[in-house]
């Protein structure tokens, strides 16, 4: 049995590592350096970092208190709310893109209201930010709710009974105790946002220096300069690896017993 399990692990590892390794074997180091200097790559990197950072910040600022409420309070329809939050997780990206268009397109549901406010979404970085936030937020919310649920409720209650106002309890007790899980969920969501492709290409289009993110640049170069597409792909792997390593090494977060954002604390209501 143990040998079989070991074999299974080896197969799983090989399956995940071989494609990534093959990517690097196909790209000579010289091409990587050349890709770094290419205008397509640099423009896409700037667009990707800018849109991902803004979207991620918005997800953290709105998502953290929202997850706290969902984790602490028991109310009618809570299960439904949790399901709605997870919905984008199971939507194919193309569907997410079409749904965003149907909502924010200039002749669609909210388009008239937005243009009356002087906001135009189509083909702008705002569209990219919306697409990224839409697909990455369930990754963060899910993990954040679990992280807050794992916080020992008696500590929070103790702080309350000692007279700490709710905001102070949140910032000084719940947030530090949930930091490990929150950090891991944040890393996963950020990575998902950086890799966002389907919703972006349908909702925001693709224009170098404006809406063309790294994944879109890879796809566009695929038909023009295959070697450049491979090189950008390899750089993307490096960027993702650095991000993951950095987040795992941040000391405050190592307090968490697990680095997986999807450990589910037993919910007290069910």
């Amino acid at each position, binding site marked *: 049995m143990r040998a079989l399990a070991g074999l299974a692990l080896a197969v799983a590892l090989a399956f995940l590592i071989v494609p990534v390794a093959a990517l690097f074997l196909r790209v000579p180091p010289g091409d990587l350096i050349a890709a770094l200097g290419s205008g397509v790559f640099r423009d896409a990197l700037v667009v990707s970092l800018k849109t991902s950072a803004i979207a991620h910040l918005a997800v953290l600022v709105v998502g953290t208190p929202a997850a706290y409420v969902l984790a602490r309070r028991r109310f009618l329809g809570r299960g439904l709310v949790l399901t709605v939050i997870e919905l984008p997780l199971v939507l194919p990206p193309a569907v997410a893109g079409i749904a965003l*268009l149907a909502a924010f*397109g*200039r*002749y*669609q549901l909210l388009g008239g209201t937005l243009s009356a406010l002087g906001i135009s979404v*189509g*083909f702008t970085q705002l569209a990219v930010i919306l697409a990224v936030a839409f697909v990455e937020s369930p990754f963060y919310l899910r993990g954040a709710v679990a992280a807050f649920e794992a916080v020992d409720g008696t500590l929070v209650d103790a702080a309350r009974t000692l007279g700490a106002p709710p905001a102070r309890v949140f910032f000084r007790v719940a947030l530090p105790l949930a930091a490990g899980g929150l950090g891991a969920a944040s890393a996963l969501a950020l990575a998902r946002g950086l890799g966002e492709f389907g919703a972006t*290409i*349908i909702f*925001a*289009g*693709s*224009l*170098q220096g*404006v*809406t063309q993110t790294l994944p879109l640049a890879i*796809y*566009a*170069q695929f*038909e*023009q*300069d295959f070697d450049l597409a491979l090189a950008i792909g390899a750089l993307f792997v490096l960027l993702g690896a650095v991000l993951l390593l950095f987040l795992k090494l941040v000391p405050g977060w190592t307090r968490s017993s697990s680095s997986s954002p999807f450990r589910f604390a037993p919910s007290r209501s069910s």
Partner: protein
Amino acid sequence: MRLVLVAALATGLALPSATTAASPITVFAAASLTAVFPRIAPAARYSFAGSDQLALQLQQGAPADVYAAASPKYPELLYHQGLVRKPVVFATNRLVLIVPRNNPARIGSVYDLRRSGIKLVIGDKGVPIGAYTRQILDTIGISADVLKNVVSEETDVKGIVGKVALGEADVGFVYATDARPVASRVKVVPLPAWAQPPIRYEIAVVKGGREPAARGFVARVTGKAGRAVMSKAGFGLPKG
């Protein structure tokens, strides 16, 4: 056997041997032919994809009997490599502008695209539609002014059609045949005939396949029945 014979005759496929009647021939065809080829010969087996992808598959030895591409580039290359018989032109296409039904930017001709603030969607320069678009703008001599209005460079024609049909973009460059399926949502603005780049579709019999049956298929596509279907779908026809 009789049924099979009738079916084979109905599709106009030649019957050099019993085996061809039993199993249909395999046709590799450009994605833009998806709607028309099955109407010309319903019995054949089809693989529709980008012309370049299909060419790559043929070079790797994929078993096909006929290759039909959206440009002469790959059929001529494969002919040169000895993989297919001499290709022939069987259809042509034109570039057109499409605008949303309500034409929000009031576009009446290609020259209106020079106005600033217009949301124009074109193909990426790596895909044929994008290359043809840049070519026609160069010929007309308004490239610099028009390309300033590009808000997105799509990687296939579907992306261009979709964004104009939904009204997100004011105008897009597509093939005439792509405008047909969304005729209820878009309006077509013709482009000057004198500036049109030659857009030719070529078809060839693959060497080493079931060549007599494949020749029958090519004859049907280039014959009266095929020409009628192609023309109805908006394709142009070569002389002959």
